[in-house]
């Protein structure tokens, strides 16, 4: 009845990084029972050890270019590059968490295990080559994050954060599943490559199946759009970011965004690039929708960020805005022939954004007080005097988020804009650059407070050695990508999604 896959078809080596980390997470859950309550940092270091192993494994299979689990999972440079961003953000997130959890009195071993599980979910999402696997991965990454958001127990804001994230997230998952079901209905398969093959038949045939496909792809967009926080599915972001523990926000603001975009890019570029209403259309039918979402996200994210006074909320809106920039690349992928370039652009952007954003959150966390206050923009006043190195790094992070050259942010914007123009979406590119100017207004305010405003600087008591190291790594990544971008493009040049299409 059932075909039992052979080991060769499973090709576990391809998915080794994710499988190893999943196994390690489960083992760690048991090991943690034997770690004394006051020495939970051991668990954290063990978790980082697991991540390091997965990282090395990921580099080893980077050029693997094979299918695992009978084609449900794809191990290629796209997966590999995303894994770098995901594992990096998770390791940095744990580094940031160690002392933070202790000083805010919420240190528990499960925290690290949950982070590892979410990381595994993200990694599976990066490699998912099938709509069902995307869904399973989506849940695997989301459920730990719901729990973690509410980790600051006894704090109403954190509870609100967790509950809000959970309810809205559950809604979004439902949208996603419905979309996947409709696409299955139209094509009879959930594997992206097969979806692609049957779409050309459906499009040339016209009729009902195209309607199903359009509806289905729209619903997928809703579900994943929620994960990556694009307008109009962004409303949860500021509240969740504000209430959740800061190191967790640092992790999920980049990790789950990377995973969400991974699924979105792969589904759109591998599965649905030729989804057109008429066979004679020049671009994919979803391009206009994505285009509009990207434009709306850029405008709303950047403009609302202008009026924020809290760094966590500001970074929340800024993360919405950055989702808009990556969404530009997704829109560009709708033009035939631009898919690979758009995917590379998005990947470089995500990698640069990973380092920069985690760095920014790290500095915010360093000045945060034990009760979760002290993250207003005015708390940055005078930081360049009290903590010159920390302030300098924060300034670089802000410049990178603005997109000033010699930082990773510039390279990311550059490649995304280039893909957008290559796809012929000139108005979207114009919106992109104009909103970048708007973003300069609020990022520069942080720099103004740190360097130009007079006042007694915050001692940044939260900047413990592990936090400092995480910040240094984020800083090094940000600057390195900015000055020597060929290091990143050497990886991204290997990304060829369109080769999956038969």
């Amino acid at each position: 009845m059932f075909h039992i896959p052979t080991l060769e078809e499973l090709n576990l080596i391809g998915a080794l990084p994710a499988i190893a980390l999943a196994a390690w997470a489960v083992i760690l859950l048991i090991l943690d029972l034997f770690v004394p309550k006051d020495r939970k940092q051991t668990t954290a270091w063990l978790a980082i050890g697991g991540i390091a192993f997965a990282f090395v494994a990921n580099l080893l299979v980077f050029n693997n270019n094979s299918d695992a689990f009978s084609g449900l999972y794809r191990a290629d440079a796209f997966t590999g590059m995303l894994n770098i961003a995901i594992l990096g953000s998770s390791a940095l997130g744990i580094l940031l968490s160690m002392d933070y959890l202790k000083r805010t009195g919420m240190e528990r071993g499960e925290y690290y295990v949950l982070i590892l599980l979410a990381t595994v979910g993200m990694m599976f999402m990066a490699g998912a080559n099938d709509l069902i696997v995307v869904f399973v991965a989506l849940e695997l990454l989301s459920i730990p994050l719901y729990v973690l958001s509410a980790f600051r127990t006894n704090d109403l804001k954190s509870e609100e954060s967790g509950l809000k994230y959970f309810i809205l997230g559950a809604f979004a998952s439902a949208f996603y599943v419905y979309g996947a079901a409709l696409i299955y209905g139209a094509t009879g398969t959930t594997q992206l490559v097969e979806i692609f093959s049957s779409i050309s038949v459906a499009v040339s045939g016209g009729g009902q199946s195209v309607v199903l496909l359009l509806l289905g792809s729209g619903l997928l967009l809703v579900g994943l759009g929620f994960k990556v926080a694009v307008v109009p599915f962004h409303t949860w972001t500021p509240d969740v970011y504000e209430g959740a523990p800061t190191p967790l926000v640092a992790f999920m603001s980049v990790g789950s965004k990377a995973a969400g975009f991974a699924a979105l890019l792969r589904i759109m570029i591998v599965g649905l690039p030729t989804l057109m209403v008429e066979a004679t259309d020049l671009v994919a039918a979803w391009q206009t929708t994505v285009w509009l979402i990207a434009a709306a996200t850029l405008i709303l994210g950047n403009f609302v960020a202008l009026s924020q006074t809290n760094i966590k909320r500001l970074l929340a809106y800024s993360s919405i805005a950055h989702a808009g920039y990556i969404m530009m690349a997704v829109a560009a992928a709708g033009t035939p022939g631009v898919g690979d370039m758009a995917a590379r652009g998005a990947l470089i952007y995500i990698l640069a954004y990973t380092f920069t954003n985690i760095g920014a959150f790290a500095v915010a966390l360093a000045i945060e007080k034990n009760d979760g206050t002290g993250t207003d923009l005015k708390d940055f006043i005078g930081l360049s005097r009290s903590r010159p190195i920390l302030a300098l790094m924060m300034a670089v992070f802000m410049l990178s988020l603005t997109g000033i050259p010699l930082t990773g942010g510039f390279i990311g914007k550059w490649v995304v804009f280039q893909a957008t123009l290559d796809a012929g979406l000139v108005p979207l590119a114009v919106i992109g650059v104009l909103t970048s100017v708007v973003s300069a207004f609020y990022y520069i305010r942080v720099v103004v407070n740190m360097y130009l405003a007079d006042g007694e600087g915050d001692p940044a008591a939260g900047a413990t050695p592990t936090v400092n190291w995480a910040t240094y790594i984020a800083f090094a990544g940000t600057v390195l990508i900015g000055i020597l971008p060929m290091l990143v493009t050497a990886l991204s040049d290997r990304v060829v999604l369109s080769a999956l299409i038969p």
Partner: protein
Amino acid sequence: MEATGFSLLTLVLFLPMVGFTILLFLREEQAKEIRWTALGVSIITFVASLLLWVGFDQNEPGLQFVQKWDWLPSYGISYFVGIDGLSLLLVILTTFIMPLAILSSFRAHVLEERGRQKLYYMFMMLLEWAMIGVFVAQDLVIFYVFWEVTLVPMYFLIGIWGAEKRVYAAVKFFLYTMAGSILMLLAILYVGLQAGTFSLPEIIAGVQNGTLVFPGDGLFSTQSFLFLGFLIAFAIKVPLWPFHSWLPDAHVQAPTAGSVILAGVMLKLGTYGIVRFCLPMFPDASVQWAPIVGTLAVIGIIYGAWVSYAQTDFKKLVAYSSVSHLGFVVLGIFALNAQGIAGATLQMVNHGISTGGLFLLVGMLYERRHTKDMNAFGGIWKALPLFGGISLLVTLSSMGLPGLNGFIGEFSILMGTFGSDVLGFFFALVATIGVILSAVYLLYMFQKVYMGELDKEENKHLEPLHWQEIAVLVPIVIAILVIGLQPAPFFASMDATVGALVAQVREHIPTVVQVP
């Protein structure tokens, strides 16, 4: 222009970054070492840049000292630098102004008061690197990188060590210039995608031999939009009227060295950009827009002069005079002939020296009296004879007195404008009125500050010039006299390049009878 080995130009470009790195490892307490390192490095950079001039072949219109390394190979972007007759003088201007700006900071009161000297000199080094980079970059993206990077140190120089309203001025400066340059980013991307390369010489060659066509019929063609994308970024930097409103704030609030660099070098990034990018890449649009830009330029000339005359703040007067002087430069560029462009290039250098000098003088007075109000002075020449004498020379040079540097450039621009096929008599006439007005406000300033009775008690016992201050002013005086009396070698160094550029652009002037 084979790019092999290590070019002297790369050395000149990266010397300031060597200084930056050394400073990074000095401690704040080592104030003396910090200062002298910065000064030493900037002087070495100057000497190295003179070697560029020595090795420069005047008869070669193309690029020299070329260096090309991959930067983003898969996107067709490379670290590609080189200089021709246009860049050479501006690179030397930069390396000439920087040591003076740094030396003038040694005694700056504001550095004592606000501290953070290490950061200050590190920003100076970063700024010098980025400014030289703008003048030598031959890849559009690398150019943009340097262009944007100049913003950051200047923003901090104004914002941390500026006067009372420094934060406002710094933020305004940053946002205004960034808003301008971001449109250029799009234009660069578009040009690069069309051309398949970001290398400027290749793009220009493509435009010339017709393999790369930007449709350029009318004022609202693709070429015009691209032209404007670049021009607006440059016009804000220049600043061309009506994009000048950031300049008085930035100049007045900046510390002395900041003003000197701003006026001396940074404004030229804009005018240089127009000559380097707008004209050769978009010749049709340049021709079509020349009368409009020329009109803005003459408005700027008159407006800047007029507003200068109305000032009582010494520094503001000099700041507005820049609007007027840079109007001349833009006018000369859009005359689109050899006289105009060569004059404009020389005038960029002259303005850097003269106005840079004026800001140094204002700064020295400010250090002594802590005011920039001209009414507080009077009879300064009697109190400080040497200072007064140098001030007169610099003022006259800024005015364009024959025999001094300012005259040569202005005269050449006016001749170019007069004989231009796209501008012509009327523009030259209005600009000439501007020359007269500049004499009015500068002499008015000189009379108010230096002449008259030494009637105010505070002015009677001013501290005489320190040897460091003399050391700052003497090179300025020498440069004024050398360029004024011997302009020929300066023109000669750029003749070949300007000639080639003008030949390219003039093919696109419809009314010109093409000489076979």
